[in-house]
Structures are given as structure tokens and as C-alpha cells.
């Protein structure tokens, strides 16, 4: 706890990397497949079928990173914190990312989103990045905390839920759009920065099989807690700020109610039920 995670300003403002292309990191997470069976095993434990895929919004972030690399050159690195799985890293490589890094350590078990953000930031703090991208939220917990959390720990600007992204490499500035109620907001932001990506920013590519094969064989760089200058007290159950109190399964769908009257009485009954029972009108 309380480690100085704000990076050295000279590293973050260095423009060297932009001359040879952009240094982009994409934070990715593997989440249970929508088809996976998830059961509430106990108040604090879920039983999740072993089917995982890359969180959809993170794929949008990878795509955004790859598009910038194709335009300006540079490197895209996918980064995850997961003790068991690297599916999202392989997915990133199969889409075209250059490198993959897995942060894993038994001490991470039970970490909350803040500990994850702190750890990712600890890895990134001395890297010469121009841009960090990630999904607006993970598709399992829908928390949306890690992205902004990493930006805060690094002391860099962040914009949430962007739907367009343009980078001015020379001016070291990005122009982004995000949806707000009844409209859109267009913002400019100095680089380096962190953006979380929303549906509409792009359509993630389907990987070519050649890259899939490359991803299957790819060596994933592994980083542990100690090498990040963090200790067990900084992560895991010891560092919890958000505690899960109880998991509840979604309510069962009520049985279908058949309206037996003939027209036009059935319409009146339907409207009455929608208003009084379902309370949707």
C-alpha cells in the first residue's frame, strides 16, 4: 500500500517513441463466455464453467491500438493480470499485437479492481508508453474501475467510453469522442493518456489463421509481484477496498401467463397486466 506509482514525468513526456511509431499498451481481461454455465456455489463463491473469451470491449481496445500501429508504426503490447488464463493475450496476438505480458502471482487471489489497477500501473510506470487502451468495462463484473484506476495511479489523463479516436503524433495530442446524454462530447487530450473503449469505436477484426497459429505458439512473458516492487499487502484479500458480500443468482423467469379472453377484451386485460403487474407502462 501507498507505493509511489506516479511515473517519472520525464519518461512519460519523452517524444522519442513517437518518431519511430507509437508505443501502445492494451489492458485485456479474459471473462466467462456468455455460453458458460455459472452457478452460485455459496454466498461468496461462483462455479464457472471452463469457457472463457476476451472481454468484448477489450477487443475493441486491441483493434484501436492495431489501427494506430498500422497508421503510425510502433508496437502494441497486450497486458493482463490473471493467475490461470492467458486467452485474452493469445487473442490479442492473433489479432496482430506484437507482445503479450501476463502478470501472475498467488498473492493476487481475491484482489479487487483497485488492486488490479495498482498492479497494472506498477508494471507500466517505467515503460515509455504513448497510449494505454482498455475496454470500458469487463463483461463479467461490469465494474469499469480498472481503466480509470490505472490512469489515476499513473497520473495521466483518461477519457472513458470513447467512440472515436484520432491521434496527432507531432502535436502529441489525441482527439476523442464519447457519448453523453442526448449527444456527443468531443475532447482533446495530451499524450500519454489512457482511454477506455466503447462499442461503436470500431469493429474488431477476425484473426487470420496464420496469426492464430502464431498466437498458439507465442511465448507469453510472465511477471510476478516482487518484480513490480509490490508486496502481498498491496494486493489480494489484504488490500480489499471493495468486498463482495453475497452473490445472488438472477431471479427465475416467471411462468407465461396466457390471456384467454377473445378480442377486444384480451387487449384490455393485456394493458391492465402490463400496467399493474409488470409495471412497464
Amino acid at each position, binding site marked *: 500500500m501507498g507505493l509511489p506509482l506516479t511515473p517519472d514525468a520525464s519518461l512519460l513526456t519523452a517524444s522519442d517513441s513517437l518518431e519511430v511509431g507509437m508505443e501502445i499498451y492494451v489492458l485485456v481481461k479474459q471473462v466467462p*463466455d456468455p455460453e458458460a454455465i455459472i452457478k452460485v456455489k455459496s454466498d461468496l463463491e461462483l462455479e464457472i464453467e471452463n469457457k472463457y473469451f476476451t472481454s468484448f470491449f477489450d477487443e475493441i481496445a486491441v483493434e484501436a491500438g492495431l489501427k494506430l500501429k498500422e497508421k503510425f508504426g510502433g508496437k502494441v503490447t497486450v497486458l493482463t493480470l490473471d493467475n490461470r488464463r492467458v486467452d485474452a493475450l493469445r487473442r490479442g496476438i492473433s489479432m496482430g499485437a506484437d507482445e503479450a505480458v501476463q502478470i501472475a502471482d498467488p498473492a493476487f487471489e481475491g484482489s479487487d479492481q483497485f488492486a488490479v489497477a495498482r498492479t497494472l500501473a506498477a508494471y507500466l510506470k517505467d515503460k515509455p508508453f504513448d497510449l494505454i487502451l482498455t475496454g470500458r468495462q469487463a463483461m463479467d463484473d461490469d465494474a469499469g474501475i480498472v481503466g480509470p484506476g490505472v490512469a489515476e495511479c499513473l497520473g495521466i489523463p483518461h477519457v472513458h467510453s470513447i467512440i472515436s479516436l484520432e491521434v496527432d503524433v507531432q502535436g502529441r495530442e489525441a482527439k476523442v469522442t464519447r457519448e453523453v446524454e442526448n449527444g456527443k462530447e468531443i475532447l482533446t487530450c495530451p499524450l500519454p493518456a489512457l482511454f477506455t473503449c466503447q462499442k461503436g469505436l470500431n469493429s474488431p477484426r477476425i*484473426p*487470420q*489463421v*496464420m496469426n*492464430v497459429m502464431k498466437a498458439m505458439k507465442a511465448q507469453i512473458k510472465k511477471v510476478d509481484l516482487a518484480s513490480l516492487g509490490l508486496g502481498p499487502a498491496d494486493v489480494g484479500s489484504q488490500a480489499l477496498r471493495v468486498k463482495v458480500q453475497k452473490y445472488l443468482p438472477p431471479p427465475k423467469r416467471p411462468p*407465461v401467463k396466457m390471456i384467454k379472453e377473445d378480442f377486444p377484451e384480451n387487449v384490455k386485460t393485456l394493458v391492465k397486466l402490463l400496467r399493474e403487474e409488470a409495471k412497464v407502462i
Partner: protein
Amino acid sequence: MALDFSFTEEQEFFRQTVRDAVNRLIMPRVKELDEKEEFPWDLWKEFAGLGYLGLRHQETYGGMETDTITQMIFYEELARGSCGFAMSAIMQILMGTYFIARFGNEEIKQRILVPAIKGEKIGTICFTEDQSGSDLGGTRTLATKVDGGWRINGRKQWITNGPIAEFTTVMATVDPKLGLKGLNFFLVEKKTADRDGFVTGQRLHKLGSRCSVTGELVYDNVFIPDENFLGEEIGKGVQYAGEILNEVRVMTGMNALAISKEAMEDARQYANNRVAFGNPISKYQLIREKFAKFWAWYEASRTLLYKCAWMIQSNIPCTNECMLAKYHATEMCMYAVEEGMRIYGGNAFCSEYPVQRFWRDAKFLLYGGGTHEVLCDYLGRIYCKD
């Protein structure tokens, strides 16, 4: 600890990737593909662009040289989408290009295999005739040796991709009296000046697998040069065919696995929601029994099919096992689609629900790799042998 049924992390990743591609490219169009009954050129181009057509070919020609288990994972996932599209793609990946890759000279490989892997040229293999299919010894298409090459005469039927194929691997006999010993493979291409006589005959309208176009091909005294003879020695066609029959049978079984699973998943959701006599019909024992039987046979089938894939990959002789696996998986699939139809009751009989498409598509699997009557006759004979 020699027995291990698990897939590697890489294989699981590969499956997930193919599944995602199928979900995004094919699934949204399944109904349209079935109803239009046309070859989906746009989907073909998009799919070919991903590189899967080179799955089992050498890297030198643009392929990926994957192992058999990986290929079978691909076939299983692809057929989940559209059986018809899977048939066209697998024809290109496996049967349609195998003998060209195995026996074609470098010029042929550059001219045909390389664009085939890119999806630019579509190919097929031609076994079946009006009087022969599983009975290959009855092949009547004739190859006659002439100066500098061969003349091919005959008609081939039930040719997947036939109406759109630019190159065909044709099984023909040098002498019908020789039976199986007279058979050989020849490469015959369309759209080449000296290939007069190669005509696309009638296109067949099928019960299922309808977006793969199937038809008749006519070879009327077509001349082909010597290098288009695909083999090392005359009369070894059947032996060469045997090299891929195991793969073809397991691949067909993988298609059956995929269709049966999709059909029963669909039926499960229906049975959980369709209320009769005050309960979802999945609460009734006669309906539950259908799922229990399917589950048992599906798991057995899947285990046997992947065992066969492992045996092929490990070069362990497995002709009988592959026949058993194809037979079991396809019969299991027939059970699944039939019971799926019954679970849907009268709704099964209209095109609004997908169950009838599974039923129609599945029937296509009964014939490739040997009809079940022929397979069972052979297997029974082997089993009863003293």
C-alpha cells in the same frame, strides 16, 4: 498417466477462435444461406481471407500444416454454423486439393494449389457416378492413354462444388474389367483452351446442406497432359484414396457431432419454455429420456472421434475405428435431429424454427465416406471373421 483426454490450452484457444469467426460470419446468415440455395461467394471470399483453406497444406504453398486434431476441431466448429458451407470449405481443404498437393508437379501446385488455398480457384473430387459410389469398383469413367496424355470420358454425379469448380480430381478407370485395380486419379481443369469436352451438367436441388452447390460433371473425350495423372503408378488409385478416407470419415463424424449438438441445444431451450399441461415439457420423463439418450451417445461419439483423430495423427492404423466412429456419430446425429423434431411437435414442420433445417442437413452425412449399409456389412464381416 498415459491416458489423457484433455485438449491443450492452444487447442482450446484455436477452438474458441474458430467458434468466434463462425459466430460472427456464418451464424447470422444461416437461415438465408439455406433458403437462397446459392453458393455464398461473399462469405466464401471473407472466409478464405482468414486463411483456413490452407489448414492442412504445406507452408510453402500458403498453408498452415496443422495437425489432425486441430483440423478436426476446425471441422466440428465450422459445421456448427452451416453444414452446406462447411461441406464446400472442407471439400476445398481436404478432398479437393489432397491429390494435387500429394502428386502434382511444382507448376501444377503453383497454378492450382496456391490459388485454391487463397480461395481464388474452387476445386472438387469426383468419385460418384450413376451406378457407383460406395462401390468404387463399379466406376465407369474411362481414362485412355494417348500420345502425350490421356483422354477422359464419363459422367460424375453428386459432386460437391461441381457446378462452380475450376479444377477437379477425377477418379477414372483404365479398364472397367480391372475393378478396383484399374482406378486412378486425374486432374481435369476448366477454362483451359485444350479442355474442350468438360461440361457442367445438371445442378441438383437438395433436401439439406443447400448452400453447397452440387451437380453433375460430364467429361466428353477431354484431353489432359501426362502431368495431370495424379499418382506414382497406374492402378493405385484405391490405395491413394485410402490415405484420406480415415480423415474423411472422422471429418464427417465431426459434422454430425456439430449438427446434433446444435439441434439438441435448440430443442433443450424449446423444451424448457414450451408449456403443456401446466409444465414446461422438459419436466416430462418421455422428453427427458430423449435428452439423456442423446447425451450418452453424443459423449461416446465425441470420445471415439477424437480418439480416431489422435490415431490418425499418431500414424496408428485405424481404418475400422474410423468407420465405427463415422457410423456411430452419424446415427447418433440421426437420433438427435429426429427427436429434436418430435420435441418441437407440430412446430417442427414449419420453416420458422431451425429444427427442420438440422434434420434436413443431417441426412447429407449418411452417404459420404461409405453408406451405413456398406460400412456395416464390412464391419460385421470383419467382426465375425474366425
